[in-house]
């Protein structure tokens, strides 16, 4: 138990340090811009007037010395308040980001489950008959999708399934005017709009899961306890189910945590192509609009989410594989 506590403490400390570094990076990055950020953005964006400029400089303490700015910034990170958006002037940036977050969670959540379940299934069947027809064809296919730029696959799916076959809608998360709810109509509308974005996100990321599951399982299958299990008369499928797969799960858990950062990147592109109003779509829009508070809030929240997910995976791994404690400690 002592060791467990030590391990958890170490994970917490590591995550906290990473968060602090991200916060620092976020501060430095946005002050690296030539000149002061407000001037830079206003000169580039006709949407802003002088009166707004004054207020913004006040809001962000931009005339204050750097260390005062830094303290203001840290405060805003701790309170999750990055000021009001430049575009929707009376809405806090964080509210906007959080509002978009739910769509991203729906999209990435669905796709993650799909890619993990399907990827694992393909990996297990492939490893069971390594080098067979199923194995090499699924491997080629998943690598083929992995090689595609996500946005390009999304565009191809739109061209085929939305434009040519007209099976699914090409954009938006729901029909115009519809709201998220628990009624059948709302859910089916949501799913109907979700098919193509989720499909493109799942297809581009599935290769990693297939490869890792297949690799891990192949490694496990060479272990002696597998031979023993076979020798005592268990069928191949039973050995696979009860002995091999559970042991091959460890690398999967760490992969899921690591690939989260990549899945978010993919979600950005999918959301942009499908005009899916998630956090990625908002970030890219904010980049075009030079909406600095929203950009900063989105950057912070996304990274925070990934760090927390990694931390959870660490703890989960510790319970699945107690050896890790001794390795790290």
């Amino acid at each position, binding site marked *: 138990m002592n060791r467990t506590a030590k391990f958890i403490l170490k994970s917490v400390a590591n995550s906290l340090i990473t968060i602090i*570094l991200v916060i620092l990076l976020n501060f430095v990055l946005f002050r690296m811009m030539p000149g002061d950020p407000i001037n830079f953005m206003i000169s580039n964006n006709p949407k802003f007037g002088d009166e707004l400029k004054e207020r913004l400089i006040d809001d962000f303490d931009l005339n204050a010395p750097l260390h005062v700015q830094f303290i203001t910034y840290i405060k805003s990170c701790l309170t999750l308040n990055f000021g009001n958006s430049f575009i929707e002037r009376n809405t806090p940036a964080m509210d906007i980001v959080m509002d978009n977050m739910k769509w991203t969670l729906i999209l990435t959540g669905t796709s993650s489950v799909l890619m993990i379940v399907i990827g694992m299934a393909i990996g297990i069947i492939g490893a069971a008959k390594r080098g067979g027809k199923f194995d090499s064809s699924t491997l080629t296919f998943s690598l083929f999708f992995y*090689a595609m*730029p996500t946005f*390009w696959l999304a565009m191809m799916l739109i061209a085929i399934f939305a434009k040519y076959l007209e099976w699914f809608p090409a954009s938006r998360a729901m029909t115009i005017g519809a709201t998220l709810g628990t009624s059948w109509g709302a859910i089916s509308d949501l799913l109907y709009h979700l098919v193509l974005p989720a499909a493109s996100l799942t297809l581009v990321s599935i290769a990693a899961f297939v490869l890792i599951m297949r690799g891990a399982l192949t490694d496990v299958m060479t272990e002696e306890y597998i031979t023993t299990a076979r020798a005592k008369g268990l069928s191949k499928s039973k050995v696979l189910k009860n002995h091999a797969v559970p042991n091959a799960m460890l690398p999967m858990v760490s992969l899921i945590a690591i690939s989260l950062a990549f899945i978010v990147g993919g979600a950005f592109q999918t959301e942009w192509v499908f005009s899916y109003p998630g956090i990625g779509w908002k970030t890219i829009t904010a980049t075009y609009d030079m909406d600095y508070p929203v950009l900063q809030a989105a950057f912070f929240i996304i990274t925070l989410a990934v760090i927390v997910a990694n931390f959870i995976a660490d703890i989960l791994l510790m319970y699945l594989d107690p050896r890790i404690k001794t390795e790290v400690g």
Partner: protein
Amino acid sequence: MNDAKQPQSERPCRKVVGLSETHREKLSLLRKRAVKTWRIYSKNRFGMVGLAILLGFVVMAVFADQIMYILHIIGGWDFAYGPFDKVEYPGAGTPPSSEHWLGTDQWGFDLLSRVIYGSRVTLIIGFVATLVSMVLGAGVGILGGFWGGWKDAVLMRITDVFLVIPWLVLMIVLAFVLPGGPSVWKVVFVIGITGWSSTARIVRAQVFSVKERAFVERARAIGAGDMHIVRKHVFPNVFPLVFANAILTVALSILSESTLSFIGLGPQSINVVTWGNMLEDAINASAMQNELYWWIVMPGACIVLVVLGFTFMGHALDDIFNPKLRKR
């Protein structure tokens, strides 16, 4: 190739060049190892397919002029179009024809020549960005693994930051924040700096295991310094790993370039042509709505093929150099 057997006195020029006996020994060892690696590699079907695809694209990039010249004779066009040769109005935004096999874009540039010439900058960005990533990744990994202790801890926390920040988010923010307009070198820098962290992790793990091996301890026992050990023992042992990783990173870098271009933060197509900014142009010109499908399909297909080639090669090399670490 049996130079080594000939007496030194008969070949005085060799001495001037400075190929001593040990050097020659080393070279022949290196050659033997390369031949052995190639034997294993050539048995890997995926690896060979990848190599063939890549050779095809390298030929396309190097001989773009000649290819266009030959095509212009075959197609019977007025002249061999370059990527910046504007076609006379009304030649803008046209679908494929006998004169322009892939049609033209909104400014009247011939898309076929753009696809062919586009391989040049796309591949260069892929390679140079990878070089940046590998220098950073291998550097941090070797130093961290070699030093250990608190210095390693500091380096790894920094690596973690780059590992957890979603690459696309960091790329967008960097491309947005860095001074100067979009240029090839800025894109190379942005891609390079976002792509090194996983390499650092893998290299570090390998360095840790190399460091414990007997030959390093022996070297240390006879008084070898840190630099010497890193150069002569650690680096040669992690190099194959870095190489296999580099091939995979080229694939990712090319994908990153296309994504940056797609968002509008890549190099601008007025100055250079990449497959990524061809796609960007296509989107801006609503190629999908105007049913100019070739404009979207061809550059994308080229990206897919090149990335697939690098991925196949990378995995084949990974299998050879690194059968255990595949788990990651």
